[in-house]
Structures are given as C-alpha cells and as structure tokens.
C-alpha cells in the first residue's frame, strides 16, 4: 500500500518561506482554491495557508541554534481528524494515504481541527470550510506535466532541497532511505497518530583537516615552502626535495 509523504530536512531548511508562497500560489489557483485572505493590506491581515514556516531558537545565548521548522498536514497513518467528522467530508485515501477534505460536504463545524494535535487544519473564512495540505493531489497525478514536475509545489520551490516527496511504504524510495539512514522522526509520537511526514534532525557538521591537506602536494614552483636541497650525489625526488 502506498503512503505518500514529505520528509523535511531541518538541517538544510533556511527558513526562506519559498515553500509557503509557492504552496499558496499553486493551491489558491488549483482545485483546493481559492485560499482567501482577509484584510491583506490592512493592519491585521489574515488568511488561509496550508504550509507555514516557523522559527525556534534552541539553547542559551551564545550557544544557540536557529531552527526553521516548516509545518503542514502530516497525513497521519491513523488520522484522528477523520473519524470525528460527522459528514464524512474528511477522509483518508486508501490508494495513496493522502488525507483530504471534500469541500462540498464540509459543514464547517471545526470539530476535526479540535481533533488534530498539530493544528494542521485551518477554516477558510471566505468559504467557511476546513482546509489543509492536499500534498498537491491535483499536481502529482497530472499527466500533462513533465514527470519531474509531478511533485508538490513546496518541494519544487525549495532552493535547498530540504523537502523530499515520495512513498514511505516503499523501502527503496528516497524518502524511506532518508528516514532510515538520516534519523527521520515523526512529530508528537506520544499520541499514536503515526504521522506520514517525517523530519530529519539537525546534524553536527565537522570537517577533519589533515596536515598534508594544508599545503599543495604538488608544489613545482615552491610557492608554499622550500624543500630541503639534496646533496649533489643524492637523487632528486619530486615533492620531497628541491634542487
């Protein structure tokens, strides 16, 4: 069985918000749209977004790290928002595991948003229905697009490739590999929701530099250093002696 998901690398995310704007642009004009804004140029603007990037500071000054944290629907394998829906508007697709909302059935009771511990659902003030990330379901199966474009628009937009997309139930996929080999983890595992989206942790980046890497091994013009001059009867040896 397929479970499509995003794997987000917190070690690479620079918090540029490109995925936020690209998501909004695609989805406001796609089948999930419009994603209305209220008072967009006023003092207190608000609007519907499927994807937000937040920033956290970890540690105490001066030993701090800034962590940019993209946040969207995690497409849980056991989504608590689905069974509480009284109309069946909220559902999880069997074929690919995407959690979706049928906007024609949603009555806007907000109960599903209460049942989501991640705050991934937002009520659209304009349409008065619940909205959330669709994993760009209207993109990833669009056969009129080039195969490399059949990915969620946030993934396409990310300039640092912090977002991977694929089937986490396929052990050979890039996302499964990333989760397995790079310590991928789910959010709030204590609730047993089994989020499909995973996050890759921050990593310590260390470079071990050896002595011989600091000078040019091949040093024909003797710019770096004069090498010992051999005696007249000794053989000359490239890189070891100067003659």
């Amino acid at each position, binding site marked *: 069985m397929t479970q499509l998901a995003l794997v987000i690398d917190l070690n690479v995310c620079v918090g540029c918000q490109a995925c*936020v704007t690209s998501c909004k642009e695609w989805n406001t004009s796609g089948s999930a749209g419009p994603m209305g804004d209220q008072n967009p140029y006023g003092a207190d603007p608000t609007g519907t977004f499927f994807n937000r990037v937040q*920033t*956290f500071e970890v*540690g105490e000054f001066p030993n701090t790290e800034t962590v940019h944290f993209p946040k969207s629907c995690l497409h849980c394998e056991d989504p608590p928002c689905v069974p*509480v829906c009284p109309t069946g508007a909220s559902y999880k697709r069997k074929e690919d595991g995407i959690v979706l909302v049928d906007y024609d059935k949603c009555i806007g009771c907000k109960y599903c948003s*209460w049942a989501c*511990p991640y705050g991934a659902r*937002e009520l659209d003030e304009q*349409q008065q*229905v619940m909205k959330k990330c669709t994993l760009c379901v209207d993109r990833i199966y669009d056969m009129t697009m080039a195969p490399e474009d059949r990915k969620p628009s946030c993934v396409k937009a990310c300039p640092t490739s912090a977002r991977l997309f694929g089937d986490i139930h396929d052990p050979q996929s890039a996302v499964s590999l990333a989760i397995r080999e790079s310590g991928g983890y789910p959010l709030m595992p204590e609730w047993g929701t089994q989020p499909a989206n995973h996050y890759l942790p921050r990593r310590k980046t260390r470079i071990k530099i050896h002595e011989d890497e600091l000078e040019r091994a091949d040093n024909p013009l003797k710019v770096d250093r004069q090498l010992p001059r051999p005696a007249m009867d000794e053989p000359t040896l490239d890189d070891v002696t100067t003659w």
Partner: protein
Amino acid sequence: MHPAFSVIFLTTLIGAAQGLFLALFTAQSYAAFKLLPQPDAHAFYGQGSLLALVLLIAGLGASFFHLGHPERAWRAATKWRTSWLSREVIVLPAFMGVVFLYGLAHWLGWHPVMMTLPGGLPVDPSAILGVAGTLLAFALFVCTAMIYASLKFLAEWHSPLTVINYILLGGASGFSLAAAFAAYTAPELVSFLTGWAIIITLLGLVGRAASLYRNARLKPKSTLQTAIGIKHPRIVQKTQGFMGGSFNTREFFHGSSVGVLRAIKWFFLVAVFPMPVVLLASGMQGATILLAAAFLVQYAGLLAERWYFFAQANHPQNLYYQSIA
C-alpha cells in the same frame, strides 16, 4: 480553546431541557406508584413538555451559528458509526420528537391502558414515551459530553468526569426549572422537585470540584520538545510564521487574562451551586419568585461554567503558536 457562545448555549439549553423532561417523568412515575399526588396533567406535563421543547429548539438554533455551512447540517447524521457529533445530531431530534409526543399525549389527555404491570398499575402511552424519552435524554447527555471527552489530546476533557458533569449539571438546572415551573402549575410537587434539585446540584458540585481538582494537576503530555522533535531543554519560539492572526490563533486561545479566568471560575462555583441551593431551600414552601430566581441564577452560572470548561482546555497545537515576530 476559544469558548464559542453557540456551543455554550447549545449545551446549557438542551441540558436544562433534558433535565426538565427527566423531572417531569420522575414526577409522573412517583405519582403512578401513588408516592406523589396526581398533578394537573395538562398544565404540568403538557406545558412542561412544551417548555422543554422550546429550550431544545433554542439550543438547536444556537448550534447552527457554530456551523460555516448550516444548510448542509443534514449531512452530519451520516457518520454515526465513528463520530459522537454525528450521534448527537441523530439523538437530539429523536429526543425532541419523543418530548413532543409525550407532551401531546398529556395535552390531549390520551391515556388508553395499553398493558397492566404485575402490581395492577396501568401503562398508558405517556408512560412508554416517558421511558423512551428518559433513555434518549441520557443518550443525548452521553453524546454531547463524549464529543469533548473523546478528544484525547484535550486532557482537561478526556475524562469520565466530563460525562458525569454534563449529566449532573443538566439534571440540576432541569430540576430547578421543574421546581420553579411546578410552583406555577403543580404546587403539590414543589417540595419533591426542589428536594431533588438540591440533591442533584450538590452532586454536581462534587463532580465539578473533582474535575477542577483533576485539571489543576494535569501534566501536558506534549511539550515543545516532542512538538518539533528537538530534545534540548531550552527552546524558544521566535516566529510562528506570520504576524497577523490565523485560524490557529483564533480558535484555540481564549485570549483572557488569568484574572478573568479565575473570576469566572469563582462566579460559576458560587452561582451554580450554593446560591441556587439556598434559594431552592428557602423557596421550598412554594415561594415562586425564589424558585424562579434559583433557576435563573443557576442557568447564568452554567453559562459561565461552560465558558470556563472551554477556556480551560489547553490544545497541544498551542505549542506551535507562542510568539509573533
């Protein structure tokens, strides 16, 4: 959570209506076994059912204000296998229908004997409808409360005390209303109903105090560490991703100060429990004004109680929305 007045009115109004119906049928059952004098059925049971029905319709009306698409509300009856909200949507109209028929049977004086109990007690349609209504009233209490109690992320609600308190507080306000109503229509039942109203109110105090005690000692299961998966003990949010508000900041925060929260808690603790008990006890001999005041004070207190019930619940999603910048 942000307390929505639509839901506050829905739960308190239908709670009082369910309690009132239970009071009516309790009185009828006692009278059937000759433990109470027979009241004027047309006035007490008939008009009493009408009063309950009015409260139920008002509650149902209030609930529509909670919906983004009220015209699609009928769809909410479809997922009763999994959703307590869907179950409530089915049980509420069923209960309304039974209350209507129960009131109609008394109103029209329709009392054909349908069967006889072993003791020689005649059973008429109102008795059968009364039993059905009683079962539905309790089912409705359970459905309404389970909407909240079934959400495991909201630890303040995720407890059997939620169900117990919805039953006790709805019952208390319903019996207080029945006592005040009996002062007008069936004075011979006033002391009986007042007595039960006091008992249920005191039981409600025990239940609500227990839930307040429990909630004050809850330890949140989710932390910022599990929310973003970074184990460092000191994490501070610098931005939540936007500077204006969003649905997440409007729906899940009550936005009131600790002082307001505490004031509302003490207001409802006084207005729902001791004040109605004192008023009911002093009005037990049939002082109509005191009994009416008891219900009104208790109902006002219950509005505050329900507000506090919502405001106190702390949603784990709030971990992600702590700082604007």
